[in-house]
């Protein structure tokens, strides 16, 4: 790291770039990434070593440590694939292949992303609507809330096939069933947070609206919703990640024909760890991108709401 610092600052003639980089996001991310990368390589060597040694033994082959390290990082089905293997696979399946091809991760990402986005939109809407109902209607709070919670304790993977079958039987196929499963998973964090957020206005602020005899609706728009914004965005970041997971889960019972879920499944079915990891990383990357977008919206909204930087 230190030599890195030296060359970097030396080459641009001053420490300013370095400090500027480190005070932004990219610099720290790179450093942390680098650290993780090193850890990962070490981990890969250690986790893959036993099977590799096993293989040497079976082949009655003698081996040296450097050879071992080299081989553990180049296995076909490693327990933990090395970063460069994953990158290589991702490069192959993202850039080296036509994006319309079934082997292109871009194609599969798009399949998953479309149901994620649909599910996320419906889920967010549903989550907010439920929260609004719960905050405003005492009966709903007392009767519905416990069941909303219970609904989340139902293992979705168990009922996803039944959902798909039932929806399929009434003619709903394709994108929608997957989106529904994604909705089911992601509406909950939104509901919980929004219930909290919509109840977070100060007592005096609620009193103020009351003196205006503001309708529930007006109090909602003018006071409750703005106060709930920090809660909403925190939950949206969680929800978008979860809705991606939901979309992937939804892909399994449809015969896992396409999408990142199908890739994951096919990968684990054939023990192709590299394929699993590259699908996994693509999914994580997608989610991170979406979280970044939500974060960007959050900042825009907060700035409009006059929150100081």
């Amino acid at each position: 790291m230190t030599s890195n610092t030296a060359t970097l600052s030396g080459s641009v003639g001053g420490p300013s770039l370095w400090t500027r980089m480190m005070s932004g996001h990219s610099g720290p991310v790179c450093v942390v990434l680098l650290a993780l990368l090193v850890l990962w390589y070490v981990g890969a060597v250690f986790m893959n070593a036993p099977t590799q040694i096993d293989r040497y033994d079976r082949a009655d082959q003698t081996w040296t440590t450097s050879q071992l390290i080299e081989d553990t990082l180049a296995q076909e089905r490693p327990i933990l694939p090395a970063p460069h293997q994953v990158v290589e696979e991702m490069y192959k399946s993202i850039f080296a292949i036509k994006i319309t091809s079934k082997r292109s991760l871009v194609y599969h990402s798009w399949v998953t992303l479309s149901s994620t986005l649909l599910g996320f939109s419906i889920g967010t809407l549903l989550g907010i609507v439920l929260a609004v109902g719960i905050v405003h209607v005492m009966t709903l709070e007392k009767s519905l809330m416990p069941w909303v919670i219970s609904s989340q304790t139902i293992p979705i993977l168990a009922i996803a096939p039944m959902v798909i079958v039932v929806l399929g039987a009434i003619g709903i196929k394709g994108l929608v069933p997957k989106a529904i499963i994604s909705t089911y998973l992601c509406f909950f964090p939104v509901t919980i947070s929004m219930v909290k957020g919509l109840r977070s206005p100060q007592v005096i602020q609620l009193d103020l609206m009351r003196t205006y005899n503001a309708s529930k609706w007006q109090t909602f728009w003018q006071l409750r919703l703005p106060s709930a914004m920090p809660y909403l965005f925190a939950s949206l970041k969680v929800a978008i990640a979860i809705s991606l997971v939901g979309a992937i889960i939804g892909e399994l019972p449809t015969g896992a024909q396409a999408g990142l879920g199908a890739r994951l499944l096919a990968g684990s079915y054939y023990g192709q760890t590299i394929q699993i990891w590259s699908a996994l990383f693509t999914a994580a990357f997608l989610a991170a991108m979406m979280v970044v977008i939500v974060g960007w919206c959050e900042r825009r909204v907060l700035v409009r709401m006059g929150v100081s930087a």
Partner: protein
Amino acid sequence: MTQVKLDKFCLVGAVAALLALIFPLAGIDGDTGKQVAFVGDIPGLASAMALCVIAGAAFTWIGVCTILHAGILLAVAVFGAWQAIDALYDYGVAGYASTGFWLFIISLWAFVWRAIDVIANYHSLETVKQQSANIIVPIAFGVWLLFVWEVVVSGFGVPQVLLPPPSMIGVRFVSSTDTMMADFYQTFVKAALSGYVMGCGSAFLVAIAVDRVPFLKRGLLPLGNMVSALPIIGVAPIMVMWFGFDWQSKAAVIVIMTFFPMLVNTVTGLNAAGKLEKDLMATYASGYWSTLFRLRLPAAMPFVFNALKINSTLALIGAIVAEFFGTPIVGMGFRISTEVGRMNIDMVWAEIALAALAGTAFYGAVAYVERKATSWHPSFRVRRH
């Protein structure tokens, strides 16, 4: 005010019950070509419908004002529900239910909803009364949901391999307690709880570390997003590969699932303290840790509990789902996937019910602690408006 306010729900209930008496109760049997059953043949059901018409009409006028009224409505509804079940199973309406039957169910729905509404808005200074009202509402609502489920499944003749009626699930639940206890111990106690504690705990600590070291905040948080988004079904096989078949791999999956919600909420919460309060601490030259414990953590608590609540449900789901990818032959997830394959869907639902029960209780416990720990938060105060 001289004008009488008509109670809409009771009106709907009365009218629906009246129509239920007129419309056919059941459809035509495909084999015999005859109507399956008539209201006239079932005295219990007929009287229940008549009762609904009378009670509905009466309450439409006088309104449902007191707990006693609500109780009477509930009692009428319970009697009606009992008769409806009777008609389904003893008079062969199951699978052939028609307009009349469903109208009757709608009538019952109107009564139940109105009664629940009244009880939910009940206020009493006596805590015992208030609390029993608070408990009755979700239970009545839940029992009602189960009833609707039973009636819809039986009434439409849904194949039980798709969705069994709750009565069947209940029988299964009671008759397989041994298996279910073992599954529960494996999945909930061993896997879910330990994963939850480790996941939430580590995320909390990381959140504090991230907050303490701005470098990490900027470097780790964006990557944390990515970890959270690792889809469980991709991670679970890997965890089984790494940590073996037993509960440890499930706990690992849960750690990954619960980590991010906790991280995001805690980091958000740590920034929730007001500017004035921060200034106050600054005037005391309060050190980092002192400010953390005295100001920022208390202010963060509402957010932290948010995450704890969300995670309480995620943990159980995670444990169950992870068991789909390899387990010893015990556990709720194992049982669910195996029994689906065996077409024992009632057992599947019994396990799901157990999961829901455990998860809800878990959530309830967290919510209870939240209420105790953050009673100062505006959301727990002043609920008059």
